[in-house]
């Protein structure tokens, strides 16, 4: 396999040879070779912890390498700091948006390189510069608004606009589409195609296999710190790619795992009647029954997260009723919901899901402990037992339970969030984007877990931007558009085409 990707070195934009990196206790990269051609989109794939981020950090000077060399346009280069990389025209947009949400778009775009006049910043020229940078991406937004007031998708595009320089030769996009909806993704791909026609080599890191085939010219796969192989996208069938990534043949994904007993139900465990909040979510009805998965479909910004948070009491409704086991809820707060057995796994793990400095054990215990109250502490032995159970049940990859959770990879962090909810023995589990930013293997595990929980009699709500996932797991699907519930479908009606049709408003 490995040789197929190697080409005449004259067209190589950047080449990494025999790059190795060891962290305390972990061999992160083992003699990895990576070659990027001028004017190609090169997908870099691998499961969580495969070494993608480490390789990229070495390329961009964020991490020193232990051995190996880097050649840019045929010449060996020394990249020891991120400034070195930038001077050489290697730009990066990291997965987590690395901008300052409390500053304006202009300030973010010109940070550390403000145009000056007599030694003072010229904001007029800065604004012009910012507009010009955005124009490259065909993005027309008010540059004087605070960045944080825009949706994540716009922030992502601003981050790309910031990374692009006139002399950019290599552009690294680390999961740029993780929080984009279909239209925005298409816009981004168009931009990527424009950029590669300028001779820029683009590294595209993603977990969405579909998108790889849409936009990538060649694909490289890393596994456990080793380069498994590189191949042109057109010559690498999907199944082979996935088996390269996970190192085992993927059991054929069942198109539709959900049982078709939908209407069996019985009394709803959690029911919303006309629940809503002005300017957040138009009043809606929804009912969750034990042993049933309700999917929540819709574009980014259609109100998926808001719906879940309203049901959880994290957003206080100003109209309607929420009933638990038929009784109306009087006080809305996460703490009250918890005591009713309703738990919520947020979409944004870093900001809302986990406490990064606390250990895996402490994070997992947080849910159960919050339910029991501060006076009835779970004893240490019990904590260790429960944590160990969860680590095994969800196959959380961590050396031990006392590791700060912030040091785990994305998929494992997601599992910790799930574990935290599960130890609290929920009756209703609200999952917001449970598979966001996690790899193929973990993705299948999470989907299987959702089915298993459902079979155990839990009522589940799954909000997701991945339609295939929703189709696979849901007994019923509620479709949202513009912060309004527009349709609820069940049984055989749940198909990808139907959902797309409804979202599009047909």
């Amino acid at each position, binding site marked *: 396999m490995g040789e197929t990707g190697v080409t005449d070195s004259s067209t190589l934009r950047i080449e990494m040879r025999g790059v190795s990196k060891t962290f305390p206790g972990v061999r992160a990269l083992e003699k990895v070779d990576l070659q990027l051609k001028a004017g190609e989109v090169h997908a870099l794939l691998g499961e969580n912890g495969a070494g993608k981020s480490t390789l990229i950090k070495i390329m961009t000077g964020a991490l020193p390498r232990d051995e190996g060399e880097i050649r840019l346009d045929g010449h060996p280069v020394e990249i020891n700091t991120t400034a070195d990389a930038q001077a050489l025209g290697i730009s990066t947009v990291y997965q987590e948006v690395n901008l300052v949400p409390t500053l304006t778009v202009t300030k973010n775009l010109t940070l550390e390189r403000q145009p000056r006049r007599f030694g003072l910043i010229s904001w007029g020229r800065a604004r012009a510069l910012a507009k010009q940078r955005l124009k490259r991406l065909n993005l027309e937004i008010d540059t004087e608004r605070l960045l944080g007031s825009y949706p994540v998708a716009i922030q992502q595009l601003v981050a790309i606009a910031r990374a692009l320089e006139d002399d950019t030769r290599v552009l690294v996009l680390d999961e740029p589409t993780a929080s984009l909806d279909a239209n925005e993704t298409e816009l981004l791909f168009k931009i990527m195609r424009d950029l590669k026609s300028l001779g820029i080599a683009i590294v595209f890191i993603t977990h969405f296999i579909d998108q790889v085939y849409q936009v990538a010219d060649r694909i490289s796969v890393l596994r456990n710190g080793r380069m498994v192989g590189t191949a042109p996208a057109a010559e690498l069938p999907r199944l082979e790619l996935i088996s390269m990534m996970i190192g085992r043949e993927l059991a054929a994904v069942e198109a539709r795992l959900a049982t078709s007993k939908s209407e069996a139900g019985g009394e709803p465990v959690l029911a919303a009647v006309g629940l809503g909040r002005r300017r957040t979510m138009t009043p809606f009805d929804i009912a969750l029954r034990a042993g049933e998965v309700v999917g929540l479909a819709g574009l980014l910004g259609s109100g998926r997260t808001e719906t879940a948070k309203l049901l*959880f009491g*994290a957003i206080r409704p100003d109209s309607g009723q929420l009933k638990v086991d038929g009784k109306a809820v009087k006080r809305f*707060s*996460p*703490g009250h*919901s*918890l005591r009713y057995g309703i*738990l*919520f796994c*947020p979409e944004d793990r870093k*900001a*809302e*899901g*986990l*406490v*990064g*400095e*606390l250990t895996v054990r*402490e994070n997992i*215990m*947080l*849910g159960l*402990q*919050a*339910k*029991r*109250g*501060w*006076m*009835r*502490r*779970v004893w240490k032995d019990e904590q260790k037992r429960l944590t160990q159970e969860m680590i095994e049940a969800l196959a959380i990859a961590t050396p031990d339970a006392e590791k700060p959770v912030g040091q785990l990879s994305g998929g494992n962090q997601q599992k910790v969030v799930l574990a*935290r909810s599960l130890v*609290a023995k929920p009756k209703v589990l609200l999952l917001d984007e449970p598979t966001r930013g996690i790899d193929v293997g973990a993705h299948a595990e999470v989907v299987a877990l959702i089915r298993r929980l459902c079979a155990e009699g839990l009522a589940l709500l799954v909000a997701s931007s991945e339609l295939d996932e929703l189709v696979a797991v849901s007994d019923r699907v509620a479709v949202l558009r513009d912060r309004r519930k527009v349709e609820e479908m069940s049984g055989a009606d749940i198909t990808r085409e139907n959902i797309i049709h409804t979202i599009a408003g047909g």
Partner: protein
Amino acid sequence: MRALTGHRATWPLLALVVILIVDGIIAPGFFAIRIVEGRLFGTPIDILYRAMPIALIALGMAVVIGSKGIDLSVGSIVAVVGATIAWRIKAGDPHFVILLTALAVGILCGMWNGFLVAVLNIQPIIATLILMVSGRGIGLMINLIYGGTDPSFESPLLQGLSVGSIGYVPTRLILFAGLFVALWLLIRRTALGLFIESVGGNAAAANLAGINARLITFSVYVISGLCTAWAGIILTADVHTSDPVSVALFSELDAILAVVIGGGSLAGGRIYLGMTLLGALVIQTLATSILMSGLPPEYNLLVKAVVVLFVLLLQSNNARDAVFTLFRRRKG
């Protein structure tokens, strides 16, 4: 070696040992402990004895800092507590009632801070600044209630708690030990510590996990107020007078310093009670050492600052690595 340099107690402990060794060299008999008039006597005992008020305040501060807050008002709380004690003694209350009143005043001050931070969402540094500025003024106004001419008092009970001793051991050490154990049990043997740390680490996540972040934030200031009230009783009874202008001046800074020397981060998320005590001991040992060394008092603050800076640099992994690299390069 890694395990040793990695443990958070190593460097503050090392700093304490170095200061003590220097003391042993410049002041013969530094470590001698005798029994005079039925109680322990000697410099090490003196250091412990003097460190208690700051150690108490620092314990409360450690809890507040663990929640990503800060309490600048502790010195002023001491002033208010002291003024209240003198006032109630003049008013003729039974002294054990005054003891309870003093603690209640501390709790009340903590509730005020907690209200501003948790309910009104004012940033902790600003919220506690309000009481920091006004507290000493409130103390002076309390003195005015009885004319303010002679705020000194006698109280066998309170002075016994402060300067007395039980057997050979100073009472304030025993009471400190009791409060330390009680606080440790509260933080580490209930889930309160975990909740405070999770709120300090990521308040939004803690809230969505079902923790009442507002109530937790409120409670840390109450804990700080209570610890500080106890320090206020000791400090006030020691000088048996109410002196709102200068009592416990800059104690908030010493307390924050003790927490930081103990490895606490102002970014919140972790509470180290034992390490905070160690930090308070480093500060007091240093202060006593400077006094004993015969350096002119003008040098005190500067020497203290330099030593503290050194201890903090020792604790920083980055700074240590930089020094070691430099050292290795010299050798090679």
